[in-house]
């Protein structure tokens, strides 16, 4: 599968290499494997003739895998490509190049009908529970549509299944005939989850599923997703910019910056021993809701803004904001390499080796018990 073209000058390791060194794959190996995935959007100009004047390199040579039954957390700031990556994995957006395998079956190149069939096993939950439900359809229809589309059930049988699903996500089955506007944000997100569950998928890609919700409702939805995972043996790709939420739900974490995965590994390792300076800066940028723990650290505050993926900095894309950057960082793109225990990072100056003091300063002392 390594014949996919690699656009950048630095080779990223293939999935096979990553898997070989992974020790978290205990229960049955990967469900999804993504290899050298690239999605470039053309930037066009001109009135009559569309000339392509550039490319937004939204996802630029990304490889990773997701094990059966685990949650892979995907973090990064807006514009880093995490949403594009999710949509490309489900082929809601066609990849420019690269390969995706679901249970060993290649997804790129599948025809429309085969892909629809394949998507039964992979469903998505969206961020905005207002925009992702059709306001003119009743809840029963919204949740029942996947069953109808795939010809799974009809009539009373479908209604019964939908009501079961509503109950499963904590909604009143009698609300079958209501419209989305009659529900609160948290309840709407539950409707979105019921719809995603309708086809009994194996993989659920949740793109910022709790960002639009109030704190107390966030906890309800996180708990619901957690319960569903245990009961239905689901695998999640969980995208969020809230690193606290991601730490709570994830077994492994991938950190993206301007179209690249810069660090990926077991959640505990990434949080307690970050290797890439960007990961550390993300972690230390989040205020800890515990004043003493928060005061006991010296956060690493980055200067400047996230670069545009239409014009990413050469070599290491983080070198323009990185406090540890040296000459090599602007000249040679760092490879994603294994630092032990399935913990990969792409950095010329890995923190644990070169700047362990930076990690210590930015991490709170022994957290005070609340």
């Amino acid at each position, binding site marked *: 599968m390594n014949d996919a073209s690699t656009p950048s000058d630095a080779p990223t390791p293939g999935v096979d290499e990553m898997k070989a060194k992974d020790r978290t794959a205990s229960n049955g190996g990967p469900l999804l494997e993504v290899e050298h995935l690239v999605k470039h959007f053309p930037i066009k100009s001109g009135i009559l003739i569309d000339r392509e004047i550039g490319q937004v390199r939204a996802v630029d040579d990304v490889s990773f895998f997701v094990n059966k039954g685990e949650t892979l957390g995907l973090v990064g*700031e*807006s514009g880093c490509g995490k949403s594009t990556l999710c949509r490309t994995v489900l082929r809601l957006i066609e990849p420019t190049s690269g390969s995706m395998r679901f249970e060993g079956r290649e997804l790129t190149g599948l025809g429309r009908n085969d892909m629809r069939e394949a998507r039964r096993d992979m469903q998505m939950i969206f961020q905005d529970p207002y925009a992702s439900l059709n306001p003119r359809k009743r809840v029963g229809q919204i949740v029942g549509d996947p069953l109808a589309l795939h010809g799974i059930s009809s009539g009373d049988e479908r209604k019964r299944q939908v009501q079961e699903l509503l109950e499963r996500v904590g909604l009143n089955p009698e609300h079958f005939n209501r419209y989305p506007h009659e529900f*609160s944000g*948290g*309840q709407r997100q539950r409707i979105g989850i019921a719809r995603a569950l309708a086809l009994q998928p194996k993989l659920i890609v949740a793109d910022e599923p709790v960002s639009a919700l*109030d*704190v*107390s*409702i*966030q*906890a*309800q939805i*996180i*708990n619901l997703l*957690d*319960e569903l995972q245990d009961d239905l043996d689901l695998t999640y790709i969980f995208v969020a*910019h*809230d*690193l*606290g*939420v991601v*730490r*709570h*739900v*994830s077994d492994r974490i991938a950190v993206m910056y301007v179209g690249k995965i810069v660090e990926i590994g077991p*959640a*505990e390792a990434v*949080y307690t021993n970050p290797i890439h300076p960007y990961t550390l*800066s*993300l*972690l*230390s*940028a*989040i*205020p*800890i*809701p*515990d*004043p*003493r*723990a*928060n005061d006991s650290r010296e*956060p690493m*505050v*980055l*200067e400047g*803004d*996230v670069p545009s993926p239409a014009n990413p900095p050469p070599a290491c894309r983080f070198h323009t904001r990185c406090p540890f950057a040296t000459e090599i960082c602007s000249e040679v793109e760092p490879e994603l390499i294994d630092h032990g225990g399935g913990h990969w990072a792409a950095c010329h100056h890995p923190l644990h080796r070169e700047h362990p003091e930076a990690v210590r300063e930015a*991490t*709170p002392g022994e*957290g*005070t*018990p*609340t």
Partner: protein
Amino acid sequence: MSDGGHLLEVEDLHVSFDTDDGVVKAVDGVSFTVEPGRTLGIVGESGSGKSVANMTILGLTRADDANVSGRILFEGNDLAALDDEGLQGTRGNEIAMIFQDPLTSLHPFYKVGAQMTEAIQAHGDASDDEARERSIELLKLVGIPDAERRFGEYPHEFSGGMRQRVMIAMALTNDPKLLIADEPTTALDVTIQAQILRLIERLQAELGMAVIMITHDLGVIAEVADDVLVMYGGRVVEQGTRDEIFYDPQHPYTWGLLGSLTRTDRPRRSGRLAQIAGQPPSLIAPPDGCHFRPRCPHEFDKCPQVPGLEARSGTRDHLDRCWLTADQKRTLRVVDDGEIGLEEPAA
């Protein structure tokens, strides 16, 4: 103020709006004070009344369908009693406000510089050159690089973080004594949020402003606040110093907020998050008595009466609206794993 009194004192503020569905009681008897140079954090979910209360301070909720009562004393003057013209001397001069979304707060058709000089000239007679000079000085103060060039650019040429800096620069035009920041970092990425929080803290230290920081994020509160109000359903349910709220919380809603948090510095909890069940109350037909009652696992027969905001924990300025005794609270707020949270007490 020289006598060390309150900079701002809000007393029994009520704000309601007449709508087709009924009267929305957005703010229901809110009182608080802001001291010079200090930061008051106001935390609450959507619909808790935190934004409406603060917009009312600046007269921004004045409309035919709005009913406002109560007193808003700023350095001793009652702003609620002033007409719009009278308020103009304080609004934008001594009290400034910044909002969540820096894109919609700036006019897309006008250059940033033009919008800044307009604000400066609206509050005093500065010549064009003076206003320009002051604008550039302010842009530099809030850390915008290359301020002279940026002065002539349009809002769309600025990133989200830079736009919020522009809004802060505009708010600082007249050296306000109080800056009201309504979710100023909610729309921003985390690394940019850290920059803006730093900036507000630096400016506060340099300029000696008081700040009201309105947020739903207890992390932001932990980072910047000296004192904290917790709002729920239009009322203040708990008030205290930052450490009192985090380490000795008295109201079950505060326990629920603290319990439902996820943290970057703690491993995955073994169990579920201690969630708050149910939905926030309707402000048209709120429950009788304590507004949190329908969601509270510790409800008992006294809760249908409204508890006053009183010092029940034994510390003078630590106030809460919950009928439970201080001893009961100390026991009930500790959940299974020894942390603070909101759970059904074990039988």
